[in-house]
């Protein structure tokens, strides 16, 4: 479907001008940097987001004033550090719809969160002949752990195909999710196509078959309101660094009774109850899964990122990105030779916009744009199976966030037009 038609028109009530983009841009010091002599236009947010001053300062402040190891120390700094670390947990639990703090486990990132589930729950619950359902649009992080587990256990991977428009094809879903299904692992939002998947519907299908569902929220949690209770998912995973926070912090949400039933992941300090030479007991959740000294400073700073997002409001962020995505798709589609990959109905997609040029390889596109100060991503986006499905060897991807505006999209548009001239097309 062409963008801009009545059917794909997003219902947007707040005009861009009321979202104070200049004020937001001013909060991100890196956006003042020059890249190759040009103003930085950062459009690689699906890879990682930039950090506002409050997050950068929170890291500095932590090391200047609070640094100590958590949970064990009996001195003021240790208490302050523990309180700050646990405050982020409480905030994270509220951020995804008001779950219990104990249901939030900190990891190194989305990849580790998924591996944690595969190594613990998967190891105990997946057996020969069981089926794990994934989709054709999964990031390698939500495919490879299940692939390896399935190989080891002689289980079967089933996949939900995608339509030509880039949505999940649910025609055969009652056959794909069946009584042998033990787990449905699905991305909430595709990092390549931008598609927002019907996680709630899939959760109902999975639960009807007594299977669990894990949703990969790495791309969704930064860009739209997420309520894991409403979605009715069993596990939800995402990363701090794609939502204004530091790298090295991931989140695993798991329903209490599941986390309690799962064995620990990393054995060592912090995760034990009591240890003697003959007997070891585990700590309660979530500490059972956080063996060793965690990434305290970055977890503490992640709190500042969540507060920043709260202040702007996830509804407002989603609205802003819908409007900007519609603007970008409409504008880029005007360029001869450029083709948008993925759905064009704005309400069912996010701001990761993959595109191809019929004459140019994405690497040449990316190199050219970089020379104009524009950062995008080119390649397979850690989704090689999806690339095969959509019949491309690679795509270029511009992905939007709160500090991007129409001027950024215009800069991209102008550079792409100039690029085609440069290559004599």
């Amino acid at each position: 479907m062409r963008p801009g038609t009545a059917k794909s028109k997003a219902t947007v009530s707040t005009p861009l001008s009321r979202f104070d983009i200049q004020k937001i841009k001013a909060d991100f010091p890196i956006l003042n940097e020059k890249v190759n002599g040009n103003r930085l236009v950062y459009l690689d947010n699906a890879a990682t987001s930039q950090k506002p001053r409050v997050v950068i300062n929170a890291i500095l402040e932590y090391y200047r004033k609070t640094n100590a190891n958590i949970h064990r120390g009996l001195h003021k700094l240790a208490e302050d550090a523990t309180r700050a670390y646990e405050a982020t947990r409480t905030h994270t639990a509220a951020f995804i719809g008001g779950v219990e703090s104990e249901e939030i486990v900190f990891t190194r990132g989305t990849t580790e969160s998924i591996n944690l589930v595969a190594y613990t729950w998967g190891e105990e619950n997946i057996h020969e002949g069981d089926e794990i359902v994934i989709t054709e649009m999964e990031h390698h992080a939500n495919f490879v752990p299940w692939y390896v587990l399935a190989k080891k256990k002689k289980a079967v991977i089933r996949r939900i195909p995608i339509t030509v428009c880039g949505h999940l094809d649910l025609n055969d879903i009652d056959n794909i999710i069946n009584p042998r299904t033990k787990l449905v692992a699905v991305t909430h939002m595709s990092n390549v196509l931008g598609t927002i998947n019907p996680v709630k519907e899939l959760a109902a299908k999975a639960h009807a078959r007594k299977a669990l569902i894990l949703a990969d929220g790495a791309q969704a949690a930064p860009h739209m309101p997420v309520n894991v209770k409403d979605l009715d998912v069993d596990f939800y995973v995402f990363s701090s660094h794609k939502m204004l926070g530091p790298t090295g912090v991931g989140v695993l949400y798991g329903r209490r009774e599941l986390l309690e039933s799962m064995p620990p992941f990393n054995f060592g300090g912090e995760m034990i109850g009591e240890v003697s030479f003959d007997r070891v007991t585990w700590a309660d959740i979530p500490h059972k899964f956080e063996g060793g000294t965690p990434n305290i400073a970055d977890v503490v700073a992640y709190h500042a990122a969540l507060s920043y997002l709260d202040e702007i409001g996830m509804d407002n962020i989603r609205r802003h990105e819908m409007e900007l995505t519609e603007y970008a798709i409409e504008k880029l589609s005007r360029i001869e030779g450029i083709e948008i990959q993925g759905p064009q109905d704005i309400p069912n997609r996010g701001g990761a916009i993959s595109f191809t040029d019929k004459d140019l390889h994405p690497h040449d596109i990316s190199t050219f744009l970089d020379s104009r100060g524009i950062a995008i991503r080119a390649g397979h986006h850690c989704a090689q199976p999806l690339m095969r499905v959509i019949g491309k060897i690679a795509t270029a991807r511009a992905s939007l966030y709160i500090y991007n505006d129409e001027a950024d999209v215009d800069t991209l548009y102008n550079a792409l037009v100039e690029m085609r001239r440069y290559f004599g097309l």
Partner: protein
Amino acid sequence: MSNSLDDLYREIILDHYRSPRGKQPLEHFDISSDGHNPSCGDEISMEVEMDKERATLKNIHVDCKGCAISTASGSILAELIKGKTLDEARQIAELVKKILKGEEVEVPDSLGDLDALKGVRQFPVRIKCALLAWVTLIEGLKNYENGKDEKAVVSTEDDDEKKK
């Protein structure tokens, strides 16, 4: 900084990219080799027909689905190694590897177009693109000399250091 962009996409490179040499498929060939670069999806396949009396590379066909750099590099290869002996072809391929690794090497006038690949060195992520055609050739030659009749398959992900 568009100077360095022009240094990467030199006129010679753009010319090879727009009209790649060695496009004509061969009816008979003695060497067949496929290369791909999994990190960006570039794919190349090449066939070589040998002149068995002179032991030279008589005809070459290069088919590249990839970026401007890998396409141009494959085209330069097709042009330069035609009529060369196995040894000469291998030496040229090794010379290209040295150029791309950043070693200071003299490029003889007869191989002038190779000089254009020097601009790639400023773009580390693009070096593999430029290398692909040449490592594909080297594997093909190796198979031929070892008397293997099968098609060589090479990936830029298994370079010498990582080879198991």
